[in-house]
């Protein structure tokens, strides 16, 4: 029996030039993170979901091993998802990327004892590697890390600790996680044992109207499911780039429905969800197209219903746990 890796790192992306130079940013952060995992002897698996890749561009999978030769293909699982899932799952034509259904594809198939979902331009801080190396992670605890946004010099120096930890590179005040949700920039760091991730059914894929807030919503679901949320004790670093929500969250103020990330005012802090048993496109037909590369073909059988309102539920208030979020008038 093969020993599962300590942690599966679940990332998603596609070769569409998102944020200007998506591939370059991704390869920089992956190189750094891989080096840190390797140096500390942390057995990890990279689960990458190429969600709805454009037909006229090379897959990232076809470039990553040239860019990072030290990456071990045997420790990577690559899933390429048929673009029709993006087209037919979306409940908002302005959403170009269903980030969390994409991440669910990876979470559902991850083999690690713990599953870490993050983004392709995130560098993990020292404390995160220390905790993973120490093996002190607890089950049923959703770990969060605050994000430090960095503005890196234009010449893009090689990334090392001196660059990441230089306060001069901070784009603004460092974020502080606030109880009970510890919800700042959640999409950049959600770490949970695999069993619990499966118990909560991954990220919300019933509400496919927005991308923004789905990460916060998983925290409501976690608390409602009796999990604890804890600060892992150190930051992640994010390289600022054009088009980032973080750089201008109010760019669509007054016309929120036009935002490419959806209406950020939806009640992500006040409702919970019950994903269908097929979450993560578990019933999608899969065929292997390369070494540890699988293609998820389109099938209506794998598709959840367009609308499944009963799966939007009120969170359970648990004794000693915070009450569900406050109502915010939207309309």
């Amino acid at each position: 029996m093969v020993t599962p890796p300590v942690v599966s790192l679940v990332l998603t992306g596609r070769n569409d030039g998102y944020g200007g130079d998506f591939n370059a940013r991704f390869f920089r952060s992956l190189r750094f993170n891989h080096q840190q995992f390797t140096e500390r002897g942390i057995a990890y698996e990279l689960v990458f979901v190429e969600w709805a890749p454009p037909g006229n561009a090379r897959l990232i999978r076809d470039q990553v091993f040239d860019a990072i030769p030290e990456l071990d293909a045997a420790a990577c699982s690559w899933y390429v998802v048929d673009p029709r899932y993006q087209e037919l799952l979306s409940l908002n034509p302005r959403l170009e990327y269903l980030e969390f259904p994409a991440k669910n594809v990876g979470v559902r198939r991850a083999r690690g004892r713990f599953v870490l979902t993050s983004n392709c331009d995130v560098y993990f801080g020292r404390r995160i590697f220390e905790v993973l190396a120490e093996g002190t992670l607890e089950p049923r605890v959703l770990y969060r890390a605050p994000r430090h946004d960095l503005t890196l010099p234009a010449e893009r120096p090689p990334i090392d600790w001196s660059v990441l930890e230089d306060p001069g590179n901070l784009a603004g005040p460092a974020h502080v996680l606030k109880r009970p949700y510890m919800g700042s920039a959640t999409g950049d760091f959600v770490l949970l044992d695999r069993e619990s991730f499966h118990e909560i059914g991954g990220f919300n894929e019933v509400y496919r109207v927005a991308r923004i807030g789905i990460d916060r919503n998983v925290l409501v679901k976690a608390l409602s499911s009796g999990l604890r949320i804890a600060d892992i004790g150190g930051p992640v670093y994010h390289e600022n780039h054009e088009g980032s929500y973080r750089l201008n969250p109010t760019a669509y103020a007054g016309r929120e429905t036009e935002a490419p990330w959806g209406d950020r005012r939806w009640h992500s802090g006040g409702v919970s969800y019950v994903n269908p048993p097929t979450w993560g496109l578990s019933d999608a037909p899969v065929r292997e197209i390369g070494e540890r590369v699988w293609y998820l073909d389109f099938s209506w059988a794998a598709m959840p219903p367009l609308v499944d309102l009963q799966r939007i539920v009120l969170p359970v208030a648990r004794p000693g746990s915070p009450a569900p979020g406050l109502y915010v008038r939207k309309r």
Partner: protein
Amino acid sequence: MRRLFAALLAAFGLVSARRYETLSRSLDGLKAAAAEWKKKASEAEAQQRSMQAELSRHSQLVVKLRGSVEKWKEYHVDVKKLRDRLADTERELMVARDHLMAIEVKLDILEGAANVLDKRTRSSVPKDRHESGARA
């Protein structure tokens, strides 16, 4: 000799001039004292009447205050009831808000589904089949 003379006068109901003077002064003193006491009695009577009036006023005040105390007691009970109702209403409001949030989220989903179905329908049906082509 003097005693004999006094006794002789007394036998005829008479007193000496000196004795008369003394007794006369005593009488005046007693009259003045009587008048003084009469005045004091009159003042005391007036004071008694005043105190009775005061007592009567206080009695009325006590009755009035007793009524007020009863009203305050009732008010206190009412306030407690109102507080309980307020707490209940707050709880109900919270539940209503929770449900409202869920409903709004569901409406978002329905609206999104309607929009995408509308878009798909428009793109799947050829335009010239349903448009008259008549010029306005």
